[in-house]
C-alpha cells in the first residue's frame, strides 16, 4: 500500500513535466473532439488517434492515451444527451433519460451531472486502480500458464454470451475473431496458416486495422445500406451547463452507487460497459423517490449510469495492466497502444516499466480533472461539432480510418484487410451480431494459444494439466456458473409465466 503511494507520487512527477502535461491536455482535447462526433465510440476514437502517437516517446504517448481514453468517454455522453444516438453501448442508458431532459430544456443539468459524475467516479475508480492493480499483478505472478488459459476462456465466455441480444450471436463474433487471430505464422514453429501465400500476412493481421475497420467502415457501409438518413435533430442547449442545489442533492448518491457498480464489473470480465450501466439504471429506478420521472428525464438516470460507465472504464484497466487481458474493445485498443511501443502489459509491467505505468495512472487523475475544467466551459464548442452534416461526417471518418490503417505499417495490404473487415462489420450489424467479442477474439486468441502450448509443454503433453491446481478449478467453476446460471434463471422465469 505504502509502496503504491510512493510510486504514484513518482508517477505524478513524471506526468507533471511541461511536455507530458501538454500531451495530456492535447489528449483530453482530441479525445473529447473525436468522442463527441456521432458514430464514434471510445474504442474507435483511440484507434483513429493511434498513428498520432507513433512519433512521440512512449511515456508521453501513453499519457496522451490515458487522456484520450477518458476524453472520448466524456464526449460520448454529450452526444447521447443532445443527439439521442449513443453510438456505443455504454451510453445507451444515458441517452434514455438524458435526451428526455434535454428535450425538457434541462440539457445543462444533464450535461453537468454527467461531467461531474464522471469526474467523481473516475477519480475514485482510478484510486482503486492505483492500489488494486499492483496487488493483482503480484498475485498474477503465481498464475501458471494453465491458469491464464482458464482466465482467457472465462473472458471469452462472459464477453461472448453477455453482450447483445443473443448468446449464439455473441459466440459467432468470438469465433470469427479467433479465426482472424489465427492468420499468420505459428509463434513457435513458424508454420504458416491462412496466409494464402501472401507474404504480408505472415506477421498476422494488425489488431488496430481490425478495430478501426470494423467500427468505422462497417458502420459507414451499414448506414449507407440503410439509406433512410433522416437528419438527426440536435437539441438546443439553453443557459450554462450547471446544476442547481436540488440537482446536486439528487445526483451525489447515484454517482457513488454507480461507481460501486461500475468498477468491480470492469475488473471481472463482464463484457464492457453495457451490463454495469443497465444495472445502475435499474438500481436508481428502484431506489428513487421520483419513480414516475423515470422515462421522462430523471436526473438520477443520467448520474448513476454515467458514473458507472466511467468507473467501469477504470476497472477494465485493472486486468488490462495487471494481467495483460483486455475485456472490452476500448481496453483492447489501449493494449495495442502499449504493444506498439514494445511494452507488454501483464504482471511484470509494474516491475519492468514502473515509470510508464505509474505515469499513466497519475495522468488518468490529471486527465480527469482537466476534463472537468475543459468540458463544462467548452460545451458550446462541442455542440457545434454535432452540426456537421452526416455525409461529411462519414466521409471524414471513413477517410481517416483508412489513413489509420495505412499509416501503421505503410502498407496497402493493411488497407485491403480493412476493406474486407469492414464488410464483415457490415454483415455483423445486418445480422445482429455484436462487435466486441470479435475484437476480444482477435486479441486474446493468439494469447490463448500461447498459454495452451506452454501449459502442455510443462506437462510434456498431458492435457490433465489444464485443470490441475486450485486456480483453474475455481475459474472453471465460475465459468460453469456464468453459463448455467442464466439458463436456470430463464427456465424459472418461463416456468413462472406458464404457471400463471
Amino acid at each position, binding site marked *: 500500500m505504502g509502496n503504491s503511494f510512493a510510486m504514484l507520487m513518482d508517477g505524478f512527477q513524471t506526468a507533471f513535466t511541461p511536455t507530458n502535461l501538454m500531451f495530456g491536455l492535447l489528449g483530453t482535447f482530441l479525445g473529447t473532439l473525436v468522442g463527441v462526433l456521432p458514430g464514434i465510440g471510445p474504442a474507435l476514437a483511440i484507434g483513429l488517434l493511434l498513428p498520432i502517437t507513433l512519433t512521440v516517446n512512449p511515456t508521453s504517448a501513453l499519457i496522451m492515451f490515458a487522456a484520450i481514453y477518458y476524453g472520448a468517454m466524456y464526449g460520448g455522453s454529450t452526444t447521447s444527451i443532445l443527439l439521442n444516438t449513443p453510438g456505443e453501448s455504454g451510453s445507451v442508458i444515458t441517452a434514455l433519460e438524458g435526451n428526455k431532459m434535454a428535450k425538457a430544456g434541462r440539457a445543462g443539468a444533464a450535461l453537468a451531472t454527467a461531467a461531474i459524475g464522471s469526474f467523481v467516479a473516475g477519480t475514485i475508480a482510478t484510486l482503486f486502480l492505483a492500489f488494486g492493480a499492483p496487488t493483482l499483478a503480484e498475485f498474477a505472478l503465481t498464475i501458471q500458464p494453465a491458469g491464464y488459459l482458464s482466465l482467457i476462456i472465462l473472458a471469452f465466455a462472459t464477453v461472448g454470451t453477455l453482450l447483445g*441480444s443473443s448468446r449464439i450471436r455473441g459466440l459467432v463474433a468470438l469465433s470469427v475473431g479467433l479465426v482472424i487471430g489465427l492468420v499468420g505464422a*505459428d509463434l513457435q514453429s513458424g*508454420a504458416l496458416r491462412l496466409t494464402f501465400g501472401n507474404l504480408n500476412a505472415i506477421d498476422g493481421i494488425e489488431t488496430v486495422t481490425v478495430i478501426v475497420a470494423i467500427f468505422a467502415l462497417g458502420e459507414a457501409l451499414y448506414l449507407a445500406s440503410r439509406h433512410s438518413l433522416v437528419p438527426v435533430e440536435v437539441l438546443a442547449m439553453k443557459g450554462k451547463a450547471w446544476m442547481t442545489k436540488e440537482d446536486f442533492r439528487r445526483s451525489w448518491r447515484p454517482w457513488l452507487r454507480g461507481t460501486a457498480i461500475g468498477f468491480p464489473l470492469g475488473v471481472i470480465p463482464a463484457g464492457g460497459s453495457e451490463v454495469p450501466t443497465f444495472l445502475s439504471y435499474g438500481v436508481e429506478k428502484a431506489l428513487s423517490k421520483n419513480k414516475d420521472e423515470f422515462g421522462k428525464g430523471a436526473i438520477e438516470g443520467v448520474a448513476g449510469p454515467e458514473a458507472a460507465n466511467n468507473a467501469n472504464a477504470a476497472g477494465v484497466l485493472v486486468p488490462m495492466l495487471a494481467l495483460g487481458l483486455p475485456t472490452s474493445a476500448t481496453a483492447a485498443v489501449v493494449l495495442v497502444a502499449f504493444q506498439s511501443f514494445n511494452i507488454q502489459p501483464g504482471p511484470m509491467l509494474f516491475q519492468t516499466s514502473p515509470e510508464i505505468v505509474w505515469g499513466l495512472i497519475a495522468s488518468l487523475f490529471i486527465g480527469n480533472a482537466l476534463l472537468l475544467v475543459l468540458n463544462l466551459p467548452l460545451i458550446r464548442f462541442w455542440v457545434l461539432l454535432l452540426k456537421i452534416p452526416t455525409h461529411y461526417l462519414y466521409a471524414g471518418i471513413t477517410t481517416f480510418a483508412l489513413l489509420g490503417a495505412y499509416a501503421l505499417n505503410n502498407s496497402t495490404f493493411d488497407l485491403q484487410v480493412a476493406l474486407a473487415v469492414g464488410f464483415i462489420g457490415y454483415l455483423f450489424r445486418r445480422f*445482429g451480431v455484436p462487435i466486441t467479442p470479435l475484437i476480444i477474439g482477435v486479441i486474446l486468441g493468439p494469447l490463448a494459444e500461447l498459454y495452451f502450448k506452454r501449459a502442455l509443454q510443462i506437462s510434456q503433453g498431458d492435457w490433465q494439466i489444464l485443470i490441475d491446481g486450485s486456480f483453474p478449478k475455481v475459474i472453471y467453476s465460475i465459468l460453469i456458473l456464468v453459463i448455467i446460471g442464466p439458463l436456470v434463471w430463464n427456465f424459472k422465469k418461463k416456468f413462472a409465466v406458464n404457471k400463471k
Partner: protein
Amino acid sequence: MIPKISKQGKGELAFASSLFLLGIFVAWDVSKMEIPQGSSIVSPQTFPYMVALFTSLVGIALVFEVLRGRYATPDGDEPGDPFLPANFKTMAILAAAIGLHVILLEIAGYVVAATLCFWGVAFAFGSRKYLKDLGISLAFAGIVYFSFTKGLNINLPSGFFEGMLGK
C-alpha cells in the same frame, strides 16, 4: 415443424451457413500446414483445429436458432429503420470509394486518393453539391497530408506532387 422462412430469415440462414463453411475451410487450410519436423510437443495444428471446430459448431447452432424463428434484433442505437431492405446501390458506391482509395494511394498519392474517397463517401451518403464537396474533400485531404508529413513526420505517398511539394 419448420416455420415458413421469411426473406430476412433466408439472409440469416446464408450468413449462418457461411460461418459453418468458414470452420470447414479453416480446418482444410490447417490440414495443409507445413510443419517443421520435431519442432515441439504440441502440434501447431491442435489449437487451429479447435478454433475451426468451434466456428463450425457455432455456425450450426446459429442455423438452428434461425430455423426456430429467432431472428436478429439489430442494435437500436443507430439511426435508420433496420427492417427496410438494404440499399445495395449506395453501399456499392461507398465500397467503390474505399476500393479506389486502396488502389490509388500508392499510385497517385495520398492527396488524390483521399480527396476522391472523401468525395465518393459524401456522394454515397446523398450529397449532391459536387463542386462544394470537391473543395471540402481537397481541403480535408490537404490538411491531413501536411499535418501528418510535416507535423508528425509520418510519411504518406506523395504521388504526383513529389518534387513539387518537396520531401
